[in-house]
């Protein structure tokens, strides 16, 4: 049907610049991001940029950057990285500011979060069927004693 080239809507040029800024944050959250530079590159004044970004995403660019960093920290902690490694991998300079923000945004400390997921991962490896609704396991022919190879008919 319609391609991107043919399609247009009001203020499309502003939308594209705001979305590019958001994608820049998504790709570069682990680096030192200067939000002034993003607004410059997007050809906006800083305050105009912040206002438009918030209209679209419901957060200021700085709030959004913090949220992206914490979401990525959660993924790394789930994968077994240590809290101190994760802190620097997602772009924080200080362990105390990372830990404080993590607890405020997630509702539990980074170390508690990591411990819970480590425990769940071990449980999933040991007893995978505990994580799968019984009806699915039955339909697949997965059982406690099987090696989980599907049965070909």
């Amino acid at each position: 049907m319609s391609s991107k080239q043919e399609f247009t809507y009001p203020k499309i040029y502003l939308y594209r610049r705001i979305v590019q800024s958001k994608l820049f944050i998504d790709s570069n959250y682990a680096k030192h991001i200067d939000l002034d530079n993003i607004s410059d590159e997007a050809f906006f004044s800083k305050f105009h940029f912040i206002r438009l970004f918030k209209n679209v995403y419901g957060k200021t660019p700085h709030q959004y950057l913090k949220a992206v960093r914490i979401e990525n920290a959660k993924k790394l902690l789930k994968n077994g990285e240590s809290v101190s490694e994760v802190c620097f991998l997602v772009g924080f300079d200080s362990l105390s500011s990372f830990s404080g923000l993590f607890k405020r945004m997630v509702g539990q400390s980074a170390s508690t979060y990591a411990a819970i997921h480590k425990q769940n991962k071990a449980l999933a490896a040991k007893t995978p069927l505990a994580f799968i609704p019984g009806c699915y396991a039955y339909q697949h022919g997965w059982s406690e004693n099987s090696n989980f190879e599907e049965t070909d008919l």
Partner: protein
Amino acid sequence: MITKMTVTNIHVIDQNSAYDFYVNKLGFNLVDDIPMGPDTRWLTVSPPDQPDLQLVLFPVKVSKMFPKETAETLISLIKQGIFGCGVLTCNDIFATYEELVAKGVEFIKPPSKEFYGTEALFKDDSGNYFSLQPLNNFGNENNI
């Protein structure tokens, strides 16, 4: 009484590709990724604001559930784009459209005003399609 939907299926052709599409392109959160034998994973994702709904990325392949003929027919129908999997809601349809296009998602229809509100249609990596609609579908959809 029934209180909510907690688990539902999206039939996919390739789980690795579906993982990339739903997690890396749509931005869904991975819930479970548990190996269940050769070439099969228990793979579930959730929309970002809906952690209590698990979408099972359910592979269609010859198995106990899908005899050969059934699997082949189902794969063919999915590839043809026969199956609509539901409505996905976003805060801003134009920003979401631009982001997904930038990530290579194929749209069947860009955001368009319909009598029932603004809607776009896009396909997943298998061929399933979704309607994309803004949260407030009868308000001012353009937030800029």
